[in-house]
């Protein structure tokens, strides 16, 4: 039997990368959690409220989309709509051509990753430079981000120093402060040369048409201080209803992503610069992107559209930690990606239908999600869909033996007792390939079979009933 693709990936991962991903995803976990639980009396109430606000917005997008458009136009923003990736790319190109522009500085945006904007623009002779340090390194390495908040979680300083040397940014020096200083020097010239600053948006407020953009590095701020034209690309699901909802979402985003009360640069942008302001874009465009989001909206998995891209679910996911982001073979890795990527793939769904299976459904992702998305439930729905559509699934052990056991109480009891042996058998010695592959990227909890039955027995006796 073949192993699941994600397990193959985990197995073949270089040791160095595995450690980088494991350390990077698990470090800071306590800090992120503490920043929520210690600051708020009832952090779960925050998560639930934020989740309901976003669910409400999604279920009323027919009202909110025209409303936000009206506000944006009134604020002097030129609004564009793009049904798919191709339409969005063409729109960006059109704006560039219209203005005779050929240089873009870009701040980190998942939507533009999703539509593969940069390779397209490069083919059209347009320079599109990533300015987030991590994304910049990904770009010079012709690599892909492996985490939505920490794009180079899979890289270490030595590799980065080699890349910088290769690109002529200075002789080999792997100190993080040198790497950062060199990027600073190189990029600040670029901000001033480019005509266009391209960004995503974290939120779009329906009530006011203000878009919110957060970065710690301040690179998006620089993009919007050095250039003349601002283009923002944003999914139609980014809307929140009112300005007063901002503190809630900003508190949750900063804490869930990096354990910060607020991200350093939190920008509220509602249009071109004012008269008298010497720096920044006098022209602003906003592209509202569908790209199958409306399909998701119609599906039973629409809750995933609440996602605010904080990365918390991948940081806690035992599968992500072992397999790394590239194992998900798509723009969105980790638990959120396991739901989103197959759905965004359209008729290529079968190619990514294994992703929802690459989960032990441990529920850690749901527990940390700042908008309370029931990710494990959504994964199950997608597994079901794959089954309905007859997608073949390599690497899933057959369920026949299981079904037999579960239907025969005596066999079941015996197997529960026997299960204890599992605690003492080194799992990687078990000669079942699928199990071994599965086990490679997951931790099993200690076997506690039979405990529930024992408890039931005692409990029933205490209550004076019969067992």
């Amino acid at each position, binding site marked *: 039997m073949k192993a699941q693709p994600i397990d193959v990936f985990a197995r073949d991962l270089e040791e160095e990368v595995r450690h980088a991903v494991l350390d990077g995803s698990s470090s800071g976990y306590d800090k992120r959690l503490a920043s929520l639980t210690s600051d708020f009396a009832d952090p779960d109430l925050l998560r639930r409220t934020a989740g309901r606000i976003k669910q*409400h917005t999604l279920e009323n997008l027919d009202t909110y989309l025209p409303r936000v458009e009206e506000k944006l136009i009134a604020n002097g923003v030129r609004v564009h709509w793009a049904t798919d990736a191709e339409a969005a790319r063409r729109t960006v190109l059109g704006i560039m051509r219209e203005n005779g522009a050929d240089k873009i500085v870009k701040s980190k945006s998942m939507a533009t990753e999703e539509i593969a904007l940069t390779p397209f623009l490069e083919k059209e002779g347009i320079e599109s430079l990533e300015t987030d340090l991590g994304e910049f390194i990904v770009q010079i390495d012709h690599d892909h981000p492996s985490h939505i908040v920490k794009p180079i979680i899979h890289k270490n300083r030595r590799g980065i120093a080699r890349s910088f040397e290769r690109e002529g940014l200075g002789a080999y020096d792997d100190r993080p402060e040198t790497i950062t200083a060199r990027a600073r020097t190189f990029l600040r010239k670029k901000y001033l040369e480019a005509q266009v600053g391209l960004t995503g948006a974290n939120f779009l407020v329906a009530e006011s048409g203000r878009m919110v953009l957060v970065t710690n590095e301040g690179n998006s701020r620089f993009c919007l201080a050095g250039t003349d034209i601002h283009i923002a690309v944003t999914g139609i699901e980014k809307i929140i209803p009112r300005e007063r909802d901002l503190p809630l979402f900003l508190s949750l985003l900063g804490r869930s992503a990096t354990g910060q009360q607020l991200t350093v640069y939190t920008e509220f942008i509602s249009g071109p610069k004012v008269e008298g302001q010497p720096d920044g874009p006098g022209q602003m465009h906003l592209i509202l992107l569908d790209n199958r989001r409306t399909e998701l909206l119609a599906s039973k998995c629409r809750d995933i559209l609440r996602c605010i891209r904080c990365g918390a679910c991948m940081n806690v996911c035992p599968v992500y930690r072992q397999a790394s982001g590239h194992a998900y073979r798509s723009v969105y890795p980790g638990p959120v990606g396991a739901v989103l990527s197959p759905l965004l793939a359209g008729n290529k769904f079968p190619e990514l239908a294994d992703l929802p299976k690459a989960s032990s459904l441990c529920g850690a992702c749901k527990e940390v999600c700042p908008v309370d998305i029931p990710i494990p439930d959504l994964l199950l729905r997608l597994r079901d869909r794959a089954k309905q559509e007859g997608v073949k699934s390599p690497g899933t052990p057959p369920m026949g033996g299981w079904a037999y056991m579960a239907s025969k109480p005596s066999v079941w009891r015996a197997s529960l007792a026997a299960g204890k042996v599992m605690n003492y058998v080194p799992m990687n010695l078990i000669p079942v390939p699928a199990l071994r592959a599965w086990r490679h990227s997951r931790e099993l909890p200690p076997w506690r079979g039979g405990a529930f039955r024992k408890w039931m027995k005692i409990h029933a006796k205490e209550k004076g009933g019969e067992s």
Partner: protein
Amino acid sequence: MSGDRETILKRVRDSLAGIEDRTPYPEYDESLAVTAIRSLDGDLWERFSERFVAVNGLPITSPEELVEYLKSFEHTTGYIDPDLQTILAPYFGSGFTIEDRFDRDRLDDYRFGITRARGAIAETGSIVVTDRGTSSRLGALAPWVHVACVRRDEIFRDTPAAVAHMEDDPNVIWITGPSKTADVEGIMIEGVHGPGVQICLLLPDDVRKVQPTDA
């Protein structure tokens, strides 16, 4: 593309048609998102300063102190917002080169940029800058040291208050500490694109009354 607009809106309507009960907007108290753990009572500059220090900001209460700080690091060339020139320039002695226009072609000449903030947030240690109130976006961003000047009565207690009073300005920015990154092996480095040092200078309550003696 206008055709795309109609297509998307129709898709949205069709997708939502099957939903029987749409989730209502959950009414909630804004204080839900305010940190409960730290008291925000008393002097707001004090509360702000505590949080500002926690995010590696440097609160300063007098122009003399600011000038001493800049001198000690040999930051002697800088940009000062034209509106602040009359108040602050007299504190800077002859050892300084001060400009009231930020020339983007000489970006790296400026070691510090002093701008007028439109407010600050005590709960988070953030400074608030805007397009109308802050003279140059680059002046507040490119130099190694950014000094934001704020008056005591401009400090908001918490983020809901700052949002409720957000100006009708196309560019409102909350800045919470120095520009930073942890992209390389999770190690925190400050001053990646923007300032490595964020200072907040408390202005006297009525800045026009200030009669500084020449320093």
